[in-house]
């Protein structure tokens, strides 16, 4: 039962073995645990390794801790000045490249198009960079007057021992503006994931709950939604149409102020589980806000997520409104999707990307009649594959041990459970609250799961499994497309979007259709090769 579902001639296990043979033995051993050929009917019996060190020398998709902290979680907050403390590169690369769109609030504060760095020079490395950092914060405040400032440490900062936390505290006291310092040096952890965790911790400790402002109505926070291509705006449109108020988004189109009082919302909705489950868990413990895993990517997934919210609030009027919205939006979308589905039905896809997207987009692909045949994350943990229930059971290795796990307790004053313990339990059993089932259950037998895929593995997958499209990231895209296989970037959406929600599904369908059915692909192979290069001499009659 290990043939590829969509292509039964390929024995997947043999195929994987053959790939592994291309590595040195030790490397093969390590990689073996990160590749799962789905066989078991019961997904709960399947397991995979994740969140381990990438073998040095392997060409990986992964980035670093700084990228996860500054690049992913904090960067989208556009009314803050984010200062990268380090040599120029890190700040430069994280400048405007993540596509987290930002519209300033009424105060007009918008630093999203700026890049701030201490641009450390050799003497700063030798003599320490604290003074320079302090001065940089001061200059940033005086020139820009942001709503808050963040400081992000890069690799050498940790090594030379700059105390960025102390500098931040001093500057905050001196200038009277919130300064959040992140020890997110690139070498920490094994991928961006460490940076997410570090960002979560600091936001939880120093931002969330720092301002108490009641939020009337059905209020939710959206966690792990970064407003790529305007996703957050489409989600907002739908939720508002349903009568649901978004208190804060972490952190797409994010405003600092809204985060400070986000602990007053009724429910946390988690999009990207990987990058932000820490905050959700901690907010639940401290403030009593439960969380629900949602997926706004895909028509059915969107509707299902809305129904989770309806179930949570359990208000007939809200529920009615939500069902109305679902009906209206689904009908409108279905009409637009139908012609695309016709052209995409049965096409196979692979997804190798991120920490949640490789799962989320499977729902949307299936909406279009497509078949995900292989998938994997770049920086996920085992719970992203196997479900949140195993989170506590994962062995923490040396690389992750140094990422602080905060001890959180209910806030003596601010803790307030949103639902009764009974109802909570009921909703948990229904998987409405506190539960993420992970990617594996959605991947049927005969598919392949590959964690932290390497270039070598990707090449082999393309050559052998010949998918119709691969959803991936910028570093892989052009590799894949040289093979004449279109590759959709689902970090940056190939500068399209939004893809979330109902309208987003149509955008996505349009894009996938254009990629798969673009006649230009057919031109790649020159026609001349079909004819002999030298034909018979035509003579000089």
């Amino acid at each position, binding site marked *: 039962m290990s043939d590829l579902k969509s292509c039964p001639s390929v024995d997947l296990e043999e195929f994987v073995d053959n790939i592994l043979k291309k590595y040195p033995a030790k490397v093969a051993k390590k990689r073996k645990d990160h590749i799962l050929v789905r066989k078991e009917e019961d997904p709960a019996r399947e397991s995979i390794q994740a969140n381990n060190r990438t073998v040095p020398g392997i060409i990986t998709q992964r*980035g670093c801790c700084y990228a996860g902290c500054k690049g992913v979680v904090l960067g989208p907050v556009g009314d803050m000045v984010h200062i990268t403390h380090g040599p120029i590169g890190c700040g430069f690369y994280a400048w405007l490249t993540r596509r987290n769109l930002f519209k300033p609030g009424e105060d007009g504060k918008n*630093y999203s198009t700026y890049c701030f760095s201490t641009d450390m020079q050799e003497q700063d490395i030798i003599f320490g960079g604290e003074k320079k950092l302090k001065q940089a914060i001061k200059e940033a405040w005086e020139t820009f007057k942001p709503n808050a400032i963040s400081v992000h440490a890069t690799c050498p900062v940790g090594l030379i021992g700059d105390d960025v936390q102390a500098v931040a505290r001093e500057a905050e006291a001196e200038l009277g503006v919130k300064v959040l310092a992140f020890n997110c040096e690139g070498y920490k952890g094994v991928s961006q994931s460490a940076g997410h965790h570090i960002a979560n911790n600091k936001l939880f400790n120093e931002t969330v709950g720092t301002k108490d402002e009641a939020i009337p109505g059905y209020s939710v926070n959206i966690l792990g939604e970064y407003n790529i291509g305007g996703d957050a705006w489409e989600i907002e449109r739908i939720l508002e149409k349903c009568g649901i108020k978004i208190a804060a988004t972490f952190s797409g189109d994010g405003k600092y102020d809204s985060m400070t009082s986000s602990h007053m919302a009724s429910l946390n909705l988690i999009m990207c589980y990987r990058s932000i489950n820490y905050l959700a868990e901690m907010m639940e413990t401290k403030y009593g806000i439960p969380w629900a895993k949602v997926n706004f990517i895909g028509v059915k997934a969107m509707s299902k997520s809305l129904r989770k919210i309806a179930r949570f609030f359990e208000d007939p009027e809200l529920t009615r409104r939500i069902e109305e919205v679902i009906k209206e939006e689904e009908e409108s979308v279905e009409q637009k999707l139908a012609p695309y589905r016709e052209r995409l039905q049965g096409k196979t896809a692979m997804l190798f990307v991120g920490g949640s997207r490789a799962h989320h987009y499977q729902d949307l692909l299936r909406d279009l009649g497509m078949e995900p045949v292989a998938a994997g994350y770049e920086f996920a943990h085992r719970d992203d594959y196997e479900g949140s229930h195993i989170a506590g059971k994962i062995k923490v290795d040396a690389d992750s041990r140094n990422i602080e796990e905060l001890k959180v307790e209910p806030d003596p004053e601010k803790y307030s459970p949103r639902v009764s313990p009974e109802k909570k339990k009921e909703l948990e059993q229904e998987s409405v609250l506190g539960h993420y089932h992970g990617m594996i259950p959605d991947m049927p037998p005969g598919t392949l799961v590959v964690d932290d895929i390497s270039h070598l593995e990707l090449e082999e997958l393309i050559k052998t499994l010949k998918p119709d499209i691969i959803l991936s990231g910028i570093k892989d895209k052009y590799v894949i497309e040289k093979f004449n296989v279109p590759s959709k970037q689902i970090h940056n959406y190939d500068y399209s979007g939004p893809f979330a929600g109902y309208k987003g599904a149509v955008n996505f369908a349009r894009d996938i259709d254009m990629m798969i059915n673009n006649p230009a692909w057919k031109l790649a192979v020159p026609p001349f090769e079909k004819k002999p290069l030298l034909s018979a001499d035509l003579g000089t009659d």
Partner: protein
Amino acid sequence: MLDHTPAEVTSRKALRVNPAKTCQPIGAMYAALGIHRCLPHSHGSQGCCSYHRSHLTRHFKEPVMASTSSFTEGASVFGGSPNLRQSLKTIFQAYDPDVVAVHTTCLSETIGDDIPTIVKKAEDDGIVPRGKKVIHASTPSYVGSHVTGFSNMVKGIASYFTHPAEHKIKDQINVLPGYVEPADMRKIKSMVSEMGLKQLVFPDTSDVLDTPKTGEYSMYPKGGIKMQELEQTGNSLHTIAMGHFSSLEAATYMDQKAGVPFTLCDIPIGVQATDRFVQAVMDATGASPTQAMLDDRGRLVDMMTDYQHYLYGKKVALWGDPDQIISMAEFMVSMGMQPVYVLTGTPGKAFEKRMKKILNDTVPNAVFGHSQDLFYLHQLIKQEPVDLLVGNTYGKYIARAEDIPFVRFGFPILDRTGHSYFPSVGYKGGMHFLSAMINTLLERMDRDSPDECFELVL
């Protein structure tokens, strides 16, 4: 757009805002890609390699392959030697390059990893297969810029491959094209070839970062200078080194080590810089430019005078990598344009010396400088606007904020196409860039003309 940038310049001692440079390793990675079957290797944490590959990919819209030592906290504490050894093992078995070009990062440099020693050990231990080569360059991110990193890797290449040689081959020269596009390298090669010479060009990213789509992927495309060719660089009669900042180090090394004298040219952008390049080749080898080259030259001059009405006196803000903007500023001045602001993020006083020579008489009020950033440039523009922006993609925010026409030039270009396919160097390249500039100015003129002055013929 960029609403928080004040026109008034206040002194900044610590805060870099909107940089006009990035760090050494990406330049080293780019240079290493110009060797055939070479895998660049980033000795540091994963993020560096990922960022560099992503950024180069965005610029070239092409696969950019490189590996990393994937430092974790342990390596940062105990040193990266095991990571590099493991990397080499993995790389040679899994990816089979001819050359691995290791560059360091701020992390490995701060730790103090000694690459040559680690590599030597790896070689001795049989980790590096026979016939394969591991070379390196030291590129701490806290020194210089991406241009410095490029230069260091080019010097690294020379230092591993250039051997002293008694016998010099009289029609063979080394060409160091500097930090330019694949199309530029291709153009420089074709000019030297047309002059009848054998050349060893490195790095040479043509046919590496501008590969055709044929349905087949090759991790190591056919371009790049071959190891065997590099081994011959000591036998060359002469080295033509383009760009003080990107090529001088390697040229000097080859001179000292292998007795190959060199001529330092500017990157051949514009008539005069290209003339000097051609003259340098002539002087070194006795070769002559072809009539076709002279014809292109004449066509370029023709375009410069044909469109002088739209070019002369136009104020330009120009920024980017020093070697490129030195030539570009000279090119502009040669047709009466006024590059009033010329800034580079890369540090180096040599830049200001050259700019003084080019601008002092022609644009006496010009502001030029090294180690500058785009925030400062924007402030200058707010004080006294310009007619045209010429620089990398990051300028688009200024262009929008101030409503100034903008021609993309330099590195990186992330939001337009053509830069990697059409050269700026050589006479023909000059025509290409000049058309872009002329057409951009004309487009703007049309846009700004009131209806009654909107004209058919320009």
